[in-house]
């Protein structure tokens, strides 16, 4: 079953008097439980594609379905709810709320959902922190963690709500190769344990070996799938 369906997706950015065509007609479908990588050089449109799928940016043209919902017609509140309930995010650099410690950061999306008890929230957050190997750092603030540890927290937070999809935009870009590899291993492990669909972008060829499906993008068009 397709968790993401994209047809004829175009995205234009006005830049002064000209228009930058970031995406020029993308058609793609992602099945549930996939571990997929979008690769391409800088400026190819991979981040834009992830942003549109993640309801962070809006399509200029075309259809984008996440789950069974067409997201191009939703208002801000509905979009926010989809981001909260259906999608988990792992960003390249800015990831955690600096004033909250590890466990509070992981709990944050669950507290926004307001549909679970405090005990249940804490139990689930504890489990995920354990799975990413940060139990002993649970009370630490982000500033007290390394880059790799922060990304682990971000992975735990992305998974804590049991989302349908986790989107990761170059999650290893700011990490050394060892840490980056560990993060990708962890994502793959989470994909296996939680059965969550992972879509991540990268321009690092070394990362590709972790992906079960690779989609190449160039100049706003899919070049290889």
């Amino acid at each position, binding site marked *: 079953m397709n968790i993401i369906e994209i047809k004829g997706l175009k995205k234009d950015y006005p830049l002064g008097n000209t228009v930058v065509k970031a995406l020029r007609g993308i058609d793609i479908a992602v099945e549930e439980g996939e571990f997929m990588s979008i690769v391409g050089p800088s400026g190819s449109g991979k*981040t834009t594609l992830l*942003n549109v799928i*993640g309801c*962070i*940016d809006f399509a200029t043209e075309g259809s984008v379905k996440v789950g069974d919902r067409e997201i191009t017609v939703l208002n*801000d*509140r509905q979009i*926010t*709810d989809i*981001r*909260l*309930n259906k999608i*988990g*995010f792992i*960003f*390249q*650099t*800015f*990831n*955690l*709320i*600096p*004033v*909250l410690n590890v466990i*509070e950061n992981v709990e*944050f*999306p669950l*507290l*926004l*959902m307001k549909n679970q008890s405090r005990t249940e929230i804490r139990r689930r957050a504890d489990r995920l922190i354990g799975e990413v190997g940060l139990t002993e750092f649970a009370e630490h603030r982000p500033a007290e963690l390394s880059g790799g540890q922060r990304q682990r927290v971000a992975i735990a*937070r*992305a998974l804590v*709500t049991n989302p349908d999809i986790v989107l990761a*935009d170059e999650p290893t870009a700011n990490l050394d190769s060892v840490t980056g590899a560990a993060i990708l291993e962890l994502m793959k492990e989470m994909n296996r344990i939680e059965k969550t669909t992972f879509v991540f972008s990268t321009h690092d060829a070394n990362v590709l070996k972790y992906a079960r499906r690779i989609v190449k993008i160039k100049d706003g068009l899919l070049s290889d799938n």
Partner: protein
Amino acid sequence: MKLVLTIAWRNILRHRGKSLVIGVILFLGALLMTVGNGVISGMAAGIEKNIVNGFMGDIVLISEKQKSENILLDFMGQAIEPITTYKKIKPVLQNQDIVARHLPVGKNLTLVLKEDEATPGGAFLLGVDFAAYQKMFPDNFRIIEGRWPRPGERGLLVPTFAREEMANYMNLWVIPENGTVIKEHMKKETLEHIDALTVSSNVVMMGMASGMNSTSDIRFPVTGIVKYNALSTIFGHFCIADIDSYRECLGYFTAADKAVAVPKEEQKLLNLEGTDLDSLFGVDPLIVSNTRAPGGAAVPGGAAIINNAIVSGSSVTATPLGVENGIYNLVLVKLKDGVPYKTALGRLNRALAEAQTGVRAITWSKASGPIGSMALIIRGALFVFVTLLFCVAVIIIVNTLTMAALERTSELGMMRAIGARKSFIGGMFLGETAILSSIFGGAGIVAGIAAVKLIPLFKITSTNDMVQILYGGDIFHPLLGTSDVLITLMQLVFVTIIAAVYPMHVAGSITPLDAITRD
């Protein structure tokens, strides 16, 4: 809510510098407002206490014909309308269980004349029964030179303020009969021209009651110089004379007066036939000596009351009817403790109307015109000042919080990306402002309350007349009521909300894409 407040509180600690700037502004604003309200309330209470207890009572009865209700200090306005029905008013007041005491008085403007001075001075004149006055206002002033007039004696009490005015504008230094010049009682500016002063133990006054055509300039023997205990600048305009002299000065002549007190120059005119014309310019003074015995009824315009009938003409001989039949201008009423003014006014006005007294009751604050409203005016000025202060505070807080919101674009955008609604982001900023307001604004209010409570312990006094007005008396005694604190709290809440609205909007407008673009 807990999550919002937790993040808000930790952000306050994280951005201590900005939080401190906002906090100090809120602290100072709340402190100034609280202390300011305390000063104004103290002033209002002081003015009320001094005017009610020392000068005017709670309620003032004025003639129904009286147009302006400002009967205290109205230099440019009309004269106070006479009240001729005190005989009817007295039993009405005596039958009211809400009335503690009352005092009928004459009150009008007079010109102070000096024989070698072309320009007259001015002073208000109160005509009273001295014994009754002392019972009504037992401790509003003290006599610093001379003495009280004896029972039945004609005399004038001159306040220090009025004496200084006469010295400065007329070069006249008034001392009591048999008194001496006491230089210690002179102000510095008076001492500077002491050689030019004429020392006198009597004052010539001419009443200024409109429509009376007062022809008698009355020479008042000064029996005492008085110093008001508070608000001398206000009360010091009023010289106090016996009621009979007052009535003569204002032209409220009695029939008896008309019969016996034809001025000498008029007698000369009457006897002109066969007389040398030069005798008209004799050496006898034109000013009537104020030595007539007390008593006798008086009505305006030179008419006379004879057995309660008004008869025109000055050649009528009449039997004096007693002081209470005469003319007054006001009746000052002190209420029993705790009687609300609204209740008192309602009851008194009904009773006075039923008795056809031709007078109406008004409160002391209305009767004292701008003086009674002074607290309100200064409170308004303070409110404008604090509002301006708060406007500046709001601008600074808005600017600081907006900058904070923009600096946190990545963080806020990330929160939005993982599912935080605009209202959550806005709530964080409102929470930050609310926490700062609660802590610093609350501290400002508490500090203000403490200051207001502590200030009276220092017993700060002033002899400066203007400062005394601000103090509401001679001692600086700010007061804070619950309503004052509530007003400050409401202002603080208002400032908090206004200051947070724009930053909330800015923060709520930050999208995840803004965060990514910025990153």
